[in-house]
Structure formats: structure tokens, C-alpha cells
């Protein structure tokens, strides 16, 4: 091998691309030729320098910055297009194209705030409870079994506490929902596809894809299944509550009981149509009132399509198996970020619904990045779901009112996990201990 030949395959040699015999030939030549050896060393050092520099760049992260800029640019383009206000076919072609490239998963402050409200919306899937078989009672529930559509108001917690009212319109698997403390925002929930479309008065539309939501087939279907299943169960007891005037209406009441749950249905004493249903599910009380069945409603009210002229954003909310750790993380956010170091007065669902608009607003004011607000929103949602779908035995207890984050000697929350002999106790410093029932805080 001469120097020219050696030089020619030196790169292949460094790259480890030569076969054994060629490799040996190069090695032998390098050993014998000081000039080529110098050349090789210089080449090697350049390669090392390139590799080191390459490494320095490999940690760069432009992804989110770029995606955010694209969304901004997108919005500018959309605005310009709508300002032009033209409606020629070519305009629609262009706007379709623009619509097509609207971003999907960037979590903006607005979407995050919407996610917080949505979490509040999710918690009140009105699901029926134990009922019995009683002729009169059966009459009362017939409309629920037959209804194609329904309209009602939901209150979580006690009615006299003056919490927000959730107004629902239901058609098949879709719910059109508004909250009385955020009256301008409309959400359409599609249980079939686990998607929520939220529309605001500022013409913003947010699609939220829900992941990990327990399967909820069809709203009315679910209610029916529960009632039918329960009617067939001999263990249920139905108690007649007699007649009572509620909200100026003469109503007749029935209470169906079960060790773990209770449902009370009030029906119009003349028509036997249910107008009010009170449920206890775990520690959550849900009142459903002003119920009307088979109200004719425009199908378009339940459309999942984004209305013309709305700015679209999409985000995802993963609700998969909310754990104790999620609950604790939420406590941390509520104390540290929202409560100036102090835990909330209550962790009950109704309290959260009441606070949702304020929480959304507060997060918006903190001057955090969109990404951060989004992450906090998701943390809070998962925190809430731990209580909403509480999986422990018996009751949970909260004693965090007035406690400051870091107060390690104060127990703020305890519950008994399923199949556990001991309780899990969470303290003010957010540490957790397993505690025997006799050692629980009083």
C-alpha cells in the first residue's frame, strides 16, 4: 500500500467500514509511515472535534418554541383571511387549507383554563343508583326509560349553599352543558368519542380529547341500564316519602336505598313525571332538578363541528387512573400556587366546581408559560378525579382547612385503601404514612 492509497481509504478506516484484510493493511502502513500516521492523527482529532460539537447540539430543544410560533403565525393568517371578509370559492379553498393546518396539541392558557372547567364538568356524569321494583315507582321511572332527550339542572353539594348550577341538555350520547358561574361558555360533550368541544363568546373553540375516561356508553342508556339492573335486584328497598311542595310544585317522593348509595326521585303528583332526582354517590351529593323529558331540540345544538369564524385549539386530557400521588400533587398546587401556602378549605367536588372559574383566572394571571399553565390544569384535573372516583373503603376525611404547606405534624387527609387494614394519612408536608385505625387523628 502506498501513501495515496492509504489516504484514500482512511475515512472508511476510521468509520470502521473496511474488511479485516484491508484494515490490517492500513494498520501496517500507518505503523511504518510517519507522514500518514500524522495525517491519520489529525483526521482523527478533527472527527473527534466534530463529534464533540455534534454532542453539544444534541440537547437542543426547539420543538415547543417552533410549534408555538406556528400557532401564532397561523392565527395571524386566519385573522388576515377573515379581515379580507371575502367569501369567494377561492377564499374558502384557502381557508380550508388554513383550517387544515391549525395546530392540534399546543396547550394554551385558554385551553388550560377550559380544561379546568371541563374537569369540573366531568365530575357530574349523572349516573343512576339503586332503585327498587314497586308498581308506582315503576311508573315514575318510565319516562327515564323511554326518553329520547332530556333537559335538567344539576347541583353538586347542598342546594342551600348556593353553588353553581350545571344546565344540561341531553340528546343520545351528547350533552350540551353550561355552568351558571361561567354562563357564556358552552361545552358539548360527546360520550361516544370521549371528546369535548368548548365554545367561548370570544369565538374560541377548544377540542379536548379525553383519555382514560371510564367508558360511558350513552347517557340515557346508562341511566336505563342502571335502573333496569336495580329493578331486578330483590335487595332494594323503596320507601314512599309521600307528597311535598318543592319549588312551588306538588311532588310525590320515593327513596331507593342501598348500603352504599341512595337515590330519591320526586315526581309530579299528577303526571308521575320525575322532576327532581337526588343522589348520593360516595360523599358526593348530586341534585338533578327541573327535569323535562322529550323536549324537542335542534340537532345542531349538539354538533361537534366548529362554527365558522372560531379559532380552534386542541388539547388532550389524560385521566387514566388518578392515584394518591396525583391527589397529593394537586394538593401541592392548590396550596403552593393558588392558596399562598395554605391548603384549600375543602377538597370536595362541589367546592372545586364553585372555585373553577377563579382557579382558571388565577392561573391565567400568574404569568406562567402556556405549557406550565397546561400542566397545572392537568394536575388539578387528576387531583379532582381522585375524589370524584374515590376508590377507597368507606369515607375520606379532609382536615386541611387553615393548615399551611409544610406543617408536618398536622394530618390533612386520610382514607382507607381498598383491602387495606391500615389508613393512609397525608400530612401538611405532604408526606404519607400508614396508620392503624386506632391511631387515626380524632
Amino acid at each position, binding site marked *: 500500500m502506498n501513501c495515496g492509497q492509504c*489516504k*484514500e*481509504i*482512511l*475515512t*472508511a478506516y476510521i*468509520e470502521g*467500514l473496511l474488511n479485516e484484510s484491508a484494515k490490517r493493511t492500513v494498520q501496517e502502513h500507518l505503523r511504518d509511515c510517519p507522514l500518514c500516521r500524522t495525517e491519520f492523527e*489529525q*483526521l482523527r482529532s*478533527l*472527527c473527534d*472535534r*466534530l*463529534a*464533540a*460539537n*455534534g454532542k*453539544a*447540539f*444534541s440537547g*437542543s*430543544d*426547539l*420543538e415547543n*418554541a*417552533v*410549534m408555538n*410560533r*406556528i400557532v401564532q*403565525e397561523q392565527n395571524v393568517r386566519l385573522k388576515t383571511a377573515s379581515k379580507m371578509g371575502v367569501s369567494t370559492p377561492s377564499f374558502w379553498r384557502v381557508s380550508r*387549507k388554513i383550517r*387544515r*393546518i*391549525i*395546530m*392540534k*396539541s*399546543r396547550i394554551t392558557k385558554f385551553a388550560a383554563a377550559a380544561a379546568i372547567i371541563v374537569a369540573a364538568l366531568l365530575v357530574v356524569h349523572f349516573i343512576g343508583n339503586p332503585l327498587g321494583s314497586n308498581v308506582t315507582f315503576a311508573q315514575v321511572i318510565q319516562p327515564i326509560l323511554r326518553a329520547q332527550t332530556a333537559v335538567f339542572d344539576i347541583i353538586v353539594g347542598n342546594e342551600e349553599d348556593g353553588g353553581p348550577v350545571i344546565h344540561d341538555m341531553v340528546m343520545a350520547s351528547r350533552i350540551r352543558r353550561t355552568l351558571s358561574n361561567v354562563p357564556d361558555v358552552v361545552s358539548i360533550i360527546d360520550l361516544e368519542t370521549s371528546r369535548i368541544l368548548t365554545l367561548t363568546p370570544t369565538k374560541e373553540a377548544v377540542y379536548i380529547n379525553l383519555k382514560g375516561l371510564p367508558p360511558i356508553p350513552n347517557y340515557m342508556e346508562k341511566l336505563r341500564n342502571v335502573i333496569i339492573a336495580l329493578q331486578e335486584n330483590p335487595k332494594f328497598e323503596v320507601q314512599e316519602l309521600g307528597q311535598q311542595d318543592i319549588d312551588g310544585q306538588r311532588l310525590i317522593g320515593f327513596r331507593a336505598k342501598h348500603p352504599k348509595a341512595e337515590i330519591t326521585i320526586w315526581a309530579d303528583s299528577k303526571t308521575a313525571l320525575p322532576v327532581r332526582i337526588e343522589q348520593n354517590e360516595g360523599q358526593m351529593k348530586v341534585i338533578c332538578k327541573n327535569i323535562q323529558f322529550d323536549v324537542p331540540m335542534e340537532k345542531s345544538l349538539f354538533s361537534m363541528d366548529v362554527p365558522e369564524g372560531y379559532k380552534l385549539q386542541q388539547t388532550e386530557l389524560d385521566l387514566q387512573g388518578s392515584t394518591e400521588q396525583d391527589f397529593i400533587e394537586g394538593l401541592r398546587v392548590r396550596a403552593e400556587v393558588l392558596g399562598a401556602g395554605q391548603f384549600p378549605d375543602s377538597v370536595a367536588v362541589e367546592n372545586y366546581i364553585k372555585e373553577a372559574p377563579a382557579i382558571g383566572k388565577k392561573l391565567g394571571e400568574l404569568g406562567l408559560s402556556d405549557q406550565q399553565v397546561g400542566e397545572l390544569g392537568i394536575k388539578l384535573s387528576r387531583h379532582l378525579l381522585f375524589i370524584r372516583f374515590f376508590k377507597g373503603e368507606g369515607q375520606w376525611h379532609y382536615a386541611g382547612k387553615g393548615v399551611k404547606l409544610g406543617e408536618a405534624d398536622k394530618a390533612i387527609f386520610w382514607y382507607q385503601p381498598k383491602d387495606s387494614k391500615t389508613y393512609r394519612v397525608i400530612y401538611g408536608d405532604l408526606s404519607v404514612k400508614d396508620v392503624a385505625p386506632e391511631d387515626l387523628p380524632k
Partner: protein
Amino acid sequence: MPETDQYYIGRCLDGHPDDFRYLVRAYQAVLLAHLSGKLGNKDKAEEAAQESFVRAYFGLDGLKKPESFFSWLLGIADRVAKEHQRRGQIRQQRDVINSFSQAAPQPEISQDYALESAIAELPEAYRQVILLRYYGHHSCSQIAERLDMPLGTVTKMLSRAYVMLRQSLQKQHNESCEV
């Protein structure tokens, strides 16, 4: 198996614009290195890289050959860099940095500006190969496949690029010694 550029471009155009992030992920280091060399400053390079990606995104449906996304992207970056660039300033900056790096044995800046600017001066074909090899972390055979050339050509181009880089580095060194 990682998807090809064509796949993600198709997805973007097909109503999944968020998939553009995979292209950003794949090429950000390459683009940053390329632009650092041209602009001589990390912040400017980041700014220009972001802008290049955004322009690429909005130009996607005009891209005739999706398989040449990478060279197309580099072309966009070149134009962006040109707009950002004021030659005199860059030159000055490079000299300042060079004099720094000689005074201080181990400058705190992680990038090797001399090297990056040498890369930026390479003819396009060679520059691509160097960027893919060292900043895109491709092997020679991956480069051969992606640029549709024989493996031998890749190693030859690398060799030639090394020669040019060394000359350029040497020249820069000499110039800074004269200052």
C-alpha cells in the same frame, strides 16, 4: 422503526399538523449547527432555526419532492441566515470569539464557532454529509440511503469535506494570529 420524512410531511398535509414536531425533532440539531456556523452566535442561530422551521411548515404544500425535505430545509435556512446576516458584524464577532478562545484555554461556550463557520462555508453537498454524520447522528450507510448514493461516495465526500474543513480551520487560525 422511525418513519420517513415523507410520512410526516404527508401527515401534516393530511390534517395532522402537530406531526411537524417530529421533523423539528429530527433536524433541530443539524439546523442549529448549520446556522451557528453562519451566524456565529447561539441565540441568533436558535432564532433563525425557529424561523426556518416555521417557514418550512407553511411552505410544506409547495414542496415538490418530500424526499428532499432536508436539503430543502437547509435552503430555507440559508435564506433566513442571509437575511439575518450582516457580514461585517459576523466577521467581527468571529474574530472576537477567536481571540477569546486563545486567551482562555477552555471557553465556556459549548459551541466550536471556528468549526461551525468552517462547516457553513463548505459547498452544499459536502455540508449536508457532514451535518447528517455529526449533527444528525447518521451512520455512513444511513447517509448513503437517504441521499441515494453509494457508500463509497459518502466516505469520499467525507474525506474531501475533512480536507476542506482543515484548510478552512487553518486559514482562520492564521488570520487570528495576524490580528
